């Protein structure tokens, strides 16, 4: 499998916001490949374009220039409905700002991706309960986001991302609001998904400890990939 097609390939991808004076190059010619089954951490200073990159990988946004290939397919060639199917069947996204439906119970929020996958009600419920249990939210299933702490909301968002057993989990600072113990539990869940179920995981983090769970670390500065290697204790890197 030497010539295996990478799951994700960014070729010189740029994302520019605004025009003229106000122009911001959130991504500035970023190139990288991520193989299937990999566990990648993305780090970098605030504003370096990490979330922008994640949104592009998750097909939630489109690049200003450059090319993004998913399993060798140029994403730019897909229409809106095909992108929706891609998100539905391959991606699980954890947003930096959670993005849960307001006035909707944790359970219903977690079930949402399954609704669009066409999973039946009973099975949906079952899977959602399991996912919530996995992130330590047993007993909170019927709470609205407004009745949950920031960390709990974050865990609902994580449960929603992994409930459909996607090929690729994209997690934007999934432990940003969690204490160390909870963070480690979540990281172990992710590691299990990666090792046992073969899910590919791309995770943005600010904490080196969390990055240690990854096999690979991409370091971004000013919208460019500055370093790409193993996490510190994983061998190379810094």
């Amino acid at each position: 499998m030497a010539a295996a097609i990478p799951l994700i390939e960014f070729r010189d991808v740029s994302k520019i916001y605004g025009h003229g004076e106000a122009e911001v190059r959130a991504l500035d010619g970023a190139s990288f490949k991520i193989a299937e089954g990999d566990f990648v951490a993305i780090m970098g200073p605030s504003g370096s374009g990490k979330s922008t990159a994640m949104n592009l990988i998750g097909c939630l946004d489109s690049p200003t220039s450059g090319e993004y290939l998913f399993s060798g397919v140029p994403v730019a060639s897909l229409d809106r409905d095909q992108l929706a199917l891609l998100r539905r069947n391959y991606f699980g996204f954890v947003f930096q700002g959670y993005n849960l439906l307001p006035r909707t119970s944790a359970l219903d929020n977690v079930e949402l991706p399954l609704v669009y996958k066409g999973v039946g009600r009973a099975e949906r419920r079952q899977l959602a309960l399991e996912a919530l249990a996995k992130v330590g939210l047993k007993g909170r299933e019927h709470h609205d986001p407004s009745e949950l702490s920031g960390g709990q909301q974050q865990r609902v968002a994580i449960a929603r991302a992994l409930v459909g057993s996607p090929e690729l989990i994209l997690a934007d600072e999934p432990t940003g609001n969690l204490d160390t113990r909870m963070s480690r539990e979540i990281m172990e869940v992710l590691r299990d998904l990666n090792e046992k179920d073969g899910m590919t995981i791309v995770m943005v983090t600010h904490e080196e400890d969390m990055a240690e769970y990854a096999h690979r670390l991409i370091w971004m500065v000013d919208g460019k990939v500055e370093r790409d290697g193993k996490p510190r204790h994983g061998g190379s890197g810094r």
Partner: protein
Amino acid sequence: MILETIRLAVQAIFRNTMRSTLTVLGIVIGVAAVIAMVTVGEGSSRQVTSDVEKLGTNILMVMPGGGGQQGPGSRTVAKAFTLKDVDAIIEQIGIVETAAPYGQSSTMAIYGAQSARTTVVGTDNRYLAAIDWPIVMGRAFLASEEQSGRSVCILGETLRQNLFGNTNPIGETIRLNALTCEVVGLLEAKGASSFGMDQDDVLALPIKTFMRRVTGSDDISMIYVSVRDGQSTTRAKVEIEALMRERRRIGEGEDDDFSIMDMKQIASMLSGITNVLTGLLSAVAAVSLLVGGIGIMNIMLVSVTERTREIGIRLAVGAQASQVLMQFLVEAIVLSMIGGLIGIVLGLGLAALASNLLAIPFQPNPLVVAGAFLFSFVVGIIFGYFPARRAAKLDPIEALRHQ
């Protein structure tokens, strides 16, 4: 997936009770207002029309004085009619069924300790027949009474109530100023007319009695003419006009010094007025429909921010734009239906209540009901659907970022 979509929509409705209630309320108000107002408007216009029809559309009224005016308003005091004119009309105009003299005056009627001001009408049996006014108790005037001008009278129901209560008035004697008369008959109750007068507050005397004892002259202020069924009132008018010009010796080129009124004219004049009324009510109703519509629009637009984020979330977890839109469409349909149905029930209920209070017929117009419903329905759907459509066209991340 259809069932799932409906479930999602219903979930969304209950998730935001406030927004849903306000939307439904906007529709309810618009629909109910239109239905209630138009129904009441049409009911009252129907009432007026049927009142006029009850008076008889084959009736002509011949009065001295030009241009429909009568009395001191006229430039020259026109010569009054006499009983001979009445006879001439009956004898010489073939298409006339009958004609009757008519004069009226306001007098105090006294019976025992009771007294009441009432309208005294001098006429004869032909008048009661012409306007189709049956006698429910006692009898009409006898020919001999009409001939000799005896002091007998027939009462209207209101005057009977005022003087006698519910007791039998037949055979009793009523005093009218210097005149005393014996009650021989009681007229059927007509009910209040739409002209705002009580037609039942009346006392009828034979015309000769009336002329001799009440007005003291042989003048007749009006002649009622009823035209034979199936005959043209217009033709009768022309013939009566020619006859009267001849009898009153009005020369060629001179204006009539009398006028002939047609119930049809009065009817069309009145229905013109009620049409304007209905039009006004409809305009007010249309405004409330519009206000309701703007209310719906407002709520929908205000909730767009939140809903745009919701759309972003749904798109991000794999919904296709068409699925999200279908959900929003179903949601708008359900809300509009609920609002529309409540509005119809409420509107018809209000109209029924008002019709009852105003004593007018309750006849809802299905077209108006359907129209009001459809309008609100369309407004609900447009403003539930189109903002959603705009949002669903965004990249998911833009929708999520929407402030």
